[in-house]
């Protein structure tokens, strides 16, 4: 096996590679936008799912808070948009901010029990949320349309004039809107995960006590992660409302949706940045493909369900860490990313008593780095 090609982060070959990948992605989007309308629509739903799963990834993947209630955030985002547009005549785009804010707040509150409850027990809390959402929608039917559902009329969802899309180009508009939103979410995830806050999340997941002993506010991390996670999935909900334009409590926002998100997350690769995107493709296209494998004899339709289950199991057998996890291990054999070099004195070769030679950084006199709060 040939030795892997080594790339160092932050050097120009690495930047060039990133640039090339970004350009390729943009080209792929351009090409895709020219496909048949229903294909464009299908991709739009993939992007929306990818955003929703990214939200879940934050809580479940990076922070280890298993949630089976994210269908509720998806629904809350969708219904906020739906209600504001239909009942209060808001512009659809303007509903995103309040919807995301609302989901953040609700997520934060749902995160509160996470301060005491852990693991599968916490999953029960989120289960309760997932079960409650459709019931609450039905309960407040004056606002939400209740069991009847809430239909957003097509003309209310026309692209805004500044976008350059005509009133008939709703599909194109939503495609680009979702693509841009997904790009923004992925960038946000990338920055967050590599930041101190991101480290604090993973540390909380890996060892709560040690994280706290290192000064991580475990409580704050959990509640705000739940909030942020809910907000991102809520954003996906808003887009979903614009995409489907027909909301009903029993249609798209039940526990089954949460299960779909989890499936996507694990198949794509939990705690990876691109996993949710791959997972979204999987949850949209695998059922689609297994359904079209279906023989024309309609009573055999159940076969697609069997196939879907089998495909899920197969993928996990081949790549237990998800597709992105598996692929990055494979690609690691070709190209290795080395972290950016930081200027530190290289220590001399380890020899007996060499410690005298390697200086300890920081210390009392390094005021710029010494900040100890309470003195």
């Amino acid at each position: 096996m040939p030795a892997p090609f080594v790339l160092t982060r932050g050097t120009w070959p690495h930047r060039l590679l990133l640039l090339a990948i970004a350009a390729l992605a943009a080209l792929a989007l351009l090409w895709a936008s020219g496909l048949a309308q229903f294909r464009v629509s299908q991709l739009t739903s993939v992007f929306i799912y990818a955003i929703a799963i990214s939200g879940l990834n934050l809580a479940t993947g990076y922070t280890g808070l298993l949630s089976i209630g994210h269908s509720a955030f998806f629904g809350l985002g969708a219904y906020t948009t739906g209600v504001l547009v239909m009942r209060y005549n808001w512009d659809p785009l303007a509903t995103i901010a309040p919807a995301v804010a609302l989901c953040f707040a609700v997520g934060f509150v749902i995160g509160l029990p996470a301060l005491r409850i852990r693991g599968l027990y916490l999953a029960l809390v989120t289960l309760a949320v997932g079960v409650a959402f459709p019931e609450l929608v039905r309960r407040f039917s004056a606002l939400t349309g209740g069991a009847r559902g809430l239909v957003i009329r097509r003309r209310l969802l026309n692209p805004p004039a500044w976008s350059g899309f005509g009133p008939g180009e709703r599909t194109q508009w939503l495609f680009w809107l979702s693509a841009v939103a997904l790009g923004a979410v992925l960038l946000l995830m990338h920055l967050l995960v590599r930041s101190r806050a991101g480290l604090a999340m993973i540390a909380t997941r890996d060892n709560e006590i040690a994280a706290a002993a290192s000064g991580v506010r475990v409580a704050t991390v959990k509640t705000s992660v739940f909030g942020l996670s809910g907000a991102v999935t809520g954003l996906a909900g808003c887009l979903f409302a614009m995409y489907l334009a027909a909301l009903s409590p029993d249609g798209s926002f039940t526990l089954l949706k949460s299960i779909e998100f989890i499936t996507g997350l694990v198949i794509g690769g939990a705690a990876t940045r691109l996993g949710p995107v791959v997972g979204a493709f999987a949850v949209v296209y695998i059922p689609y493909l297994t359904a079209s494998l279906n023989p024309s004899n309609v009573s055999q339709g159940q076969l697609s369900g069997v196939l879907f289950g089998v495909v899920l199991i197969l993928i996990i057998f081949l790549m237990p860490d998800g597709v992105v996890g598996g692929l990055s291990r494979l690609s690691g054999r070709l190209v290795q990313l080395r972290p950016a070099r930081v200027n530190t004195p290289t220590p001399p070769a380890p020899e007996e008593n060499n410690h005298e030679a390697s200086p300890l950084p920081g210390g009392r006199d390094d005021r710029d780095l010494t900040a100890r709060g309470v003195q």
Partner: protein
Amino acid sequence: MSVAVLDVRDVRIHFGGVTALDGISLTVDPGEICGLIGPNGAGKTTLFNCITRIYRPDAGTIRFGGADLLAVPRHRIVRHGVARTFQNLALFPSLSVLENTVVGAHVRRGRHRALRAEALGILAALDLADVAHRPAQGLPFGTLKRVELARALAAHPRLLLLDEPAGGLTHAEVRDLGALIKRIRDRYELSALLVEHHMGLVMGICDHVVAMDSGRKIADGPPQDVQRDETVAAAYLGRAAA
């Protein structure tokens, strides 16, 4: 005589029927390395856990640099300048050694990049530069114990609590570790409380040693005196030292 940085007084804690700490008191002076020895189950780790607020004592006070530590929540302890290592390792397995160390610096101000650079420096000093980018999971035990130390150092503590840092090291490695701890003390002007069963290390670097048994203090004084103490020999050192 200078005033103590750490002042533990009459701390008691029990779990069900087990009294783990039974009115222990001890002080650590500024710049001092204080050894804490005692048989297994004496309550040494439990005392660390009380100081770092993982446990809440039933009675007693713990003061650090004038502050009442028992009134400080768990995650703020390190802000007060107290960092620790864990006897049985409590690292973040999926994070790299470098990232583990950076988490140690969580409460410090400064740019992420600068903190990383400094963490790399600490790792170099601890002979961990080679494994800086490897995930903690899968490293040998002795190495991981040093990662614990690196993480604690990254917080720039004024008091370092070391719970059996020499576990899994050879004699030569222990000797180096002893030298390193002393250097750390001098460089960062900190105090340390050291739990170790490796008597060579304790005798070699401690300025003063506290021996405990069944949650109580049984001896306190200069290392040689404590080593010669009969109760200590009987309860802890056994025939080997007697």
